[in-house]
């Protein structure tokens, strides 16, 4: 069974460690915040200039001057700091964020990622995504393994305009957790009830089955 969005977020959350500064993109990545293990503490970086993003505000706490990068009203966690956009991206570009989680349309065997534009159809802009993928060492891309029409999103070569080149090493899809290295996708984990054959058939780029491949554990 393909993972739900919530399950994908749960699996990503297992990659968190105590003391991590984390940037979560819009969509599934945002949900990761709901599954931080009880025994660890992470701080969420929001690229509009907030380190230590808290939960949504109550009606009483609502403040137009306090939003996240998704433009949602938020609160500050204890120990938060506020800074300018230039400082925020100094943090991101300078590699100070420990983990970045973001969505994509496509990734390929060379770690290229396309996530911001479908020519002629969708031009929302890249926002901070190009800086995030260029600045982070540790990135997890979350997306469905294939489109609704069964077209693989794990490719030999991205077909859409790139957000970043040679920068993605880990991908979590609704079917699998994969590592990208040496020009191949390495299957590390398959979702419960999903067969390796099914993953193989939906992975257009070269796929290697890791020696240690195992079934994904979702709490």
């Amino acid at each position: 069974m393909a993972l739900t969005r919530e399950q994908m977020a749960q699996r990503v959350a297992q990659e968190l460690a105590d003391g991590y500064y984390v940037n979560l993109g819009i969509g599934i990545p945002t949900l990761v915040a709901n599954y931080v293990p009880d025994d660890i503490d992470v701080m969420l970086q929001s690229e509009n200039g907030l380190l230590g993003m808290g939960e949504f505000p109550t009606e009483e706490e609502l403040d137009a001057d306090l939003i996240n990068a998704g433009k949602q009203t938020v609160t500050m966690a204890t120990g938060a700091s506020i800074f300018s956009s230039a400082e925020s991206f100094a943090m991101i570009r300078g590699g100070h964020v420990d983990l970045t989680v973001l969505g994509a349309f496509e990734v390929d065997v060379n770690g290229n990622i396309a996530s911001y534009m479908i020519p002629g159809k969708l031009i929302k802009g890249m926002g901070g995504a190009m800086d995030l993928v260029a600045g982070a060492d540790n990135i997890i891309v979350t997306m469905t393994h294939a489109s609704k029409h069964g077209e693989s999103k794990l490719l030999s070569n991205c077909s859409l305009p790139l957000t970043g080149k040679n920068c993605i090493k880990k991908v979590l899809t609704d079917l699998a957790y994969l590592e990208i290295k040496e020009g191949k996708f390495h299957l590390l984990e398959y979702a419960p009830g999903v067969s390796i054959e099914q993953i193989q058939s939906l992975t257009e780029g070269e796929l290697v089955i890791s020696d240690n491949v195992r079934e994904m554990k979702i709490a």
Partner: protein
Amino acid sequence: MSGFNKVVTSYQAAMAGLTDNMTVIAGGFGLCGIPENLIEEIKRKGTKGLTIVSNNCGVDDFGLGRLLSDHQIAKIVASYVGENAEFERQMMSGELEVELTPQGTLAEKMRAGGAGIPAFYTATGYGTPVGEGKEQRSFNGRDYILEESIRGDFAIVKAWKADTYGNLVYRKTARNFNPMAATAGKITVAEVEEIVEPGMLDPDQIHTPGIYVDRVIQGTFEKRIEQRTVRASL
């Protein structure tokens, strides 16, 4: 002793000197921390052919989006089109020239413009459409592209408090692009919620020193919320 008094009392005076085809750098992220009344004054003046440099372009009926309906904007440098339907329509139709710029690069271009740095290298955008036509260069085995700085004829920013000398303090995430924008205008105009006397702001806690600011005006703000997300009160 009046040489440092930057206070103006009308929005006409605040935006005096803005003429067609100028470049305006605007602070704000989404609808947060935007100089909403200065934008309204540009709409009122009807200035045309503007190049706008701003992370976003507001929404259809608020913020910089207000300048789209009368086609006052010829070109916009931004990182995100977002949910602004008229922006997307004018971009797709070619009525509006759009230079999509990564958010961090945009912030750094403004900072560099104000800081006398004509250009800098960044890995952001290397190997993507953003890097096309730009110089590529390797440092310590990694590839970067050259990005040039941005300056504006005007910079318009929103702060929380100012003193009459133009020292500015921002509030929470309404800071965003405002501090960099403030440094990058030939004429920088700040609108604020409160103006205090010099000496009332802690010198250690001023976000934008008054040297960058030419005019200050006190306004009242709608502060519209784009994504109203709340949790239940206990």
